[in-house]
């Protein structure tokens, strides 16, 4: 309740900052960016995996948000508006990436693995992460995003539906389809490589 009151009524609430930013206050832009950049960055990481273009996408997201701020009417939370842009840009990026597939480099994966572990353990981890990312890359972007928002981020179907602008039933179906496809791909992979 305190959070909601702060968000909706406080002088430094998102809504107040948006109003100031619309009036051309660059300080309000900066404050909105500082407040939300971490969340946007981590959400991009979950949706896209270790992608070298993540920094450019972060910039693009905030650029589009600030450019289209006049569209934000304040009916939903600013965070929902922001996440909608994140999801749209992530979806477009995944579609582009599917057209020009690029395997995740070992250097990108190494950044996610604990340096203190033995080389063998790191190689196993790297292999597992590469498999997970390659399987996720084979799922259609809309399904992948719905699945990750539900299973990894733990958002409710209604919240996801609001972000992706779809009905909750459609979101549930995307999540189920993505899970089924992942299972099928994993079984096919295990069958091809031999049972562990």
């Amino acid at each position, binding site marked *: 309740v305190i959070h909601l009151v702060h968000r909706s009524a406080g002088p430094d609430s998102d809504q107040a900052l948006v109003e100031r930013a619309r009036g051309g206050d*660059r300080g309000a*832009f*900066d404050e909105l*960016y*500082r407040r939300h*950049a*971490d969340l946007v*960055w*981590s*959400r991009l*990481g*979950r949706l*896209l*995996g*270790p992608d070298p273009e993540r*920094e450019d996408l*972060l*910039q693009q997201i*905030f*650029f589009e948000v*600030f*450019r289209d701020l*006049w569209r934000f009417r304040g009916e939903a939370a600013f965070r929902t508006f922001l996440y909608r842009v994140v999801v749209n840009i992530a979806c477009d990026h995944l579609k582009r990436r599917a057209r020009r597939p690029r*395997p995740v*480099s*070992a250097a990108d994966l190494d*950044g*996610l*693995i604990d340096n203190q572990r033995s*080389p*063998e353990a*790191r*190689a*196993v981890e*790297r*292999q*597992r*992460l*590469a498999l*997970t990312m390659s399987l*996720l890359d084979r799922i259609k972007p809309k399904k992948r995003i719905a699945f*990750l928002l*539900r*299973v*990894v981020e*733990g958002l*409710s*179907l209604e919240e996801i539906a609001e972000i992706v602008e779809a009905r909750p039933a459609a979101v*549930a179906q995307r*999540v*189920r389809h993505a*899970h089924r496809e*992942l*299972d099928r791909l*994993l079984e096919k992979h*295990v069958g091809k*490589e*031999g*049972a*562990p």
Partner: protein
Amino acid sequence: MSGERPGSACAEVRRLLLEGSQASDDGATGARAAAHLGRCLDCQRARDRLQGLRSDVERAATPLDDMRRARVLARLASALDNHAADGGARRRERGVRPGPGGVLSPVARWVLAAAFGGSAVAALALWLAGRQSSAPTAPVASRPAVTQPAADPPSAAPEARASGQLAVLQPYRPANATEGPPAPVDHLEVPAGRRLRLHLGARATATLIGPARLRVIRSEADLLEVNLAHGTLVAAYDHRAGGQLLVRSPRGAHPRGRHAVLGEGRRRQQPDRGRPRPRPGHGRGRPGAHAGGRRRAQHRQRQPPALDAR
């Protein structure tokens, strides 16, 4: 199973795993699913898979460091300034879209689209006509298939194969084994999910992480050459007695080249500021032909390199 159909119970559990508490209408459904999950191995495996995937994806959510945050903010400010200078906001207020649509009338846009479409159809028709006229009337006899030899690394000398010198891969003896160490072989395959520690000749030890396939292609006094067709190899080379271990990977994903050389003696000649000068090599890994000098310098790392050939 207390009268429940196994398929429907599994489906219920999967739905609960995916949709959480939203999928259960009442407490009884959740309790029933939890009881089923406790005894169904398939459902437990599905739950573990989801948990593994969740933890893998969570790793990619690395925190945003201050340098990057500041860099993006600076670029963003510059982009917003440029946008404001372009007058994008004024165009939007007038309801005019930026770009060619803003300067062309709807009729002109339709004319332009029709012209493009017509020229595309004409080009397609011309191309098809050209193809038909150049097609031979008599059926072409099928040509024999030309098989391109695979780009394999150089194979071993015949006499070396015949004398069995290639059998230098010796897996470690299992701790609980009653018999002696396994006989050395010249090729090894490791299934998915398994690891195998082995001796690579007299000077190297290695771990093969499955699925992997390793084959010896040359074994001489000062050179051991192996081909990692598939999988991951983590190797350590004892450089004190000199010699080299050359690991080839035709489909390699090694960031520093298609092959790696381990241990080429205690010293090697390396040019330094235009003047040749002996420098210690310490037998560490050196990248293959695709790597440059800067990468070579980066490659001097403490841990033995892992070569991926997935």
